[in-house]
Every structure is written in C-alpha cells, then in structure tokens.
C-alpha cells in the first residue's frame, strides 16, 4: 500500500495504490491524516490503483470522511476498479461517500 498526494487545480488529490486491509489500515489512516494540510478546501481520493480494500480500510475512509466534514472540506472518491466498486456497493458505502468515474468528474462535482 502506498499513498501519494498532488495538488491539481486547487484540489488535493490523494492517490492510494495497492491493497488496504487489516494489516496496514493503521498506516493508511496515518497517511490520510498527514495528507491534509491547513487551509485545504477540496480533497479527491483517487482509487484507480487501489486493488483491494477490506472493511478495516473502509472504516479508515469513514473516519476520514467524518474528519473532512467536520472541517468543512469538500471531498469525493473517484476511479474505482470494478471489484472495489462492488465492495463499496455491497457495504452501502457508495451511498455515504460520493463516487465519480474519473478525477475530472470528481473535480467538476467539487466545483
């Protein structure tokens, strides 16, 4: 699992690569937390290269979403591969986290 960030058109894009499961969920949590700097307004979680996420990983995303909402930071996720999309759909998380097909769509949605 690897988390990298870049700034694109006023949005912070957080790219997660590889597998997120119970064994590395705490690192994932730290990485997301560290990615957010003061004054951030828009955050996009790019999951194009996320190959698998377990419920422990979903929980981290849930906590992250809660933190962003509290700090009034707009966010969405994008570019989920089919199997990860299924995981979001089955758990019902696709109803809580806004999900878009591509980074471009996510940016457009965040305005």
């Amino acid at each position, binding site marked *: 699992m690897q988390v990298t960030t870049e700034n694109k058109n006023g949005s912070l894009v957080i790219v997660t690569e590889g597998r997120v499961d119970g064994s590395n969920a705490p690192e994932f949590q730290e990485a997301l937390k560290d990615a957010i700097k003061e004054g951030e307004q828009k955050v996009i979680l790019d999951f194009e290269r996320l190959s698998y996420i377990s*419920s422990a990983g979903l*929980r981290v995303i*849930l906590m992250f979403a809660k933190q962003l909402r509290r700090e009034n930071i707009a966010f969405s996720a994008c570019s989920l591969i089919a199997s990860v999309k299924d995981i979001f759909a089955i*758990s*019902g998380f696709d*109803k809580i986290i806004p999900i878009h097909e591509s980074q471009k769509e996510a940016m457009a949605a965040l305005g």
Partner: protein
Amino acid sequence: MNKNPYKILVVDDEPDLQPLMLQRMRRSIRAGKYVFVFAGNGVEALERLREQQDIDMVVSDINMPQMDGLTLLDQIAQLDPNIRSVIVSAYGDMKNIRTAMNRGAFDFITKPIDFDDLRITIDRTLKHMARWREALTSRDQLVTLQHELDIARKMQRAILPTEFPNKPGYRIFGDMEPARNVGGDFFDVIPLEHGRVGLAIADVSDKGVPAALFMMSSRTLLKGAAIGSSEPGDALREVNDMLCEKNESMMFVTLLYGIYDPASGKLTYANAGHNSPIVVHPDKSCDMLPLTDGIAIGVMPDLEYRQKTITLSPGDTLTFYTDGVTEAMNQNEEVLGEERLFEILKGASSKEPEEITRAIFEGIKTFVGDAPQSDDITCMTIYRAEN
C-alpha cells in the same frame, strides 16, 4: 540506564584489587552509578550472589583458588541466567578467553586492568542488560496478554450457537474460525414465535479485541431486537440506532438478518451491507440472494432497511458467509472467489448443513495451503429438506 546504582560483584584473589578499584572508580561510585561488592574466589562469589540477589553483573578473574572463573561462569548461568559476566584474563590468553565466551561471558578485559576500558565495558554490559530486562518484561506482558486473549476467545466462542435446529423439515449448521485469537465475525440462530427462526451473519470492520467487543454488543443488541420485532428491517433499524450512539471509533458491522418460516419455506431478510448468501438448488444451479441496498450498521443513524422475501424449495440449501471465505488468499495472492465457492457448495457430498460447513472449511484449507489466515472465516447453512 534506568536503575541506579548498579551493583557489581568483583571476583579476584589479589587483595590489592579492592582498594585500587574503589579508588579508580570513585567518581562513578560517588555519582551513585555503581556499587561494588568483592569476593576472593568463585565459592565466595556464589555466596555473595545468593545473599545479595540485586547484583546486576560480575567482573571475574580466571585463575583463583577453590573455584576458578571459568567454573564460576557455569555456576552463575545456573543460578541466574540474567546476570552478565565480564572476564579478566592475562593478555593474549586466547584459549581461556574463548572458553569463557563459550560459557556465556558477555565480554572480557585483559590484565593489567585499563580502568578506562573497564568503565566502558561495564557501561556497555549494563546497557545491554537494561535492554535485556526490558525485553523480558515485555515478553511477560505479552504472555499475560496472550492468556487474556485466550479467555476472550473462549468467551466469544461460547456465545456462538453450538446446538442447531435439526427438524424433519429443515436443518441448520454453522461455524466460525477467527483469524487472530478473537474475531469480529458472528452468526446466530434465534428461535422465534410460531416455529419461525431468525438467522444472522455479521462481520465487524477490523479484527482483534476492539472488533470482538463491538461484535459482542452487536450480537446482544440483535438478539434483543430479533425477539422484539417480527420484521428483519425493524430489527436492523433498532440495532443500527443503538450502535450509532457513541460510536466514536467508527467501527461498523455488516449484518444480514433473515426470518425463516418452515411452514412456507419463505425467508424474509434485510441486509446491512453484508455479502449475498448463496442458494444451491437440487439441480446444482446457484443463485445469490438479491441485495437490499442497506448500509452497514454503525455508520449513520435513522436508516431504514428494506426487506426482500425468497422461498426455499424443498431440496434447496442457503449458505450465509463472511468475506473471509471468498477472500481467503493462497500463496500466489489469488482469492478463493465466488466461483470456487459455488464449486465447493456443489461438490459437497450431501446437503446436510454440517457436511456443507465441513466442505467449505476443507475447500478453503485446500485452496489456501500454507498461506496465513488473514480474516475470520464464518459460514452458516440452512437446508430445506425434501419431503
């Protein structure tokens, strides 16, 4: 170093050494770093060690009357393997130095004693010992924790059903294999009014002790809600609202709960984010139960859970499972997957739920091989008997 002063036993048959040592080490003694105890040979040294159990390390000569330093090393190892020894030998006496090291000496210095070197050697030895003691302490804590986890595991297993309905019209069986000592999965079989039976399967996010605690409370809440409501959707809504209160840790549980009516073969269920159970028909075709779009429990309050109803025909089996089954991974990092699970279910030698459960665990074992188990594995099957 966390302990002051350290107590050092110096063993030498030369009476001059004692005043010399006290004089050369006076600063460290005055600073409260070391305290010295002296013995003239190995026998005396052992007496000191028995009298004063707070001695941390030994600095010993080799050639001494009554008991030499090499024999003393063996005796110390038996008395207290955690005491570290430094041997003082004649310069170039490699043979004795090798013997001493092989008998467990931590280090050696040579005669005539260079006191600066001795000080460095003592500090290094004590530093090593402090770390060693820390390691021992954490090992002991780990053993205690392990013991507590074993108790938690037993408690958790004890709340899972062990007796299952075995009626002419239907049979139920299930089992769980936790990944770590305590898991976050559970299943339940709840007898309800009018001969109906509640069936639940659940998977808490994450593993270990916090997940197990969350699992215990989810399971207790569900049991209460199940007995109080005749609709699965109502039961899930109640559990969700209860668990959302004070859920600071943002744990959640995927939970599928259904009520089976043996008279009609109908199963009405609601699903909070759990994966779909599988129906295997007598002709070996497989269906997955349609999802009901529910969100996992504990995420947000005031959710409604939609219900669906299916009818089990005589000869159908319905298998509930957690993703520990379909996401069991082998050494090539391939997951078991739904297709392989279908094959396992179809290949079971009978439709009896106990046999199907056995076949699933066996099938996972064969597929996974020596790869470590990373998730709890839980499954439960209901079989509607052919007349």
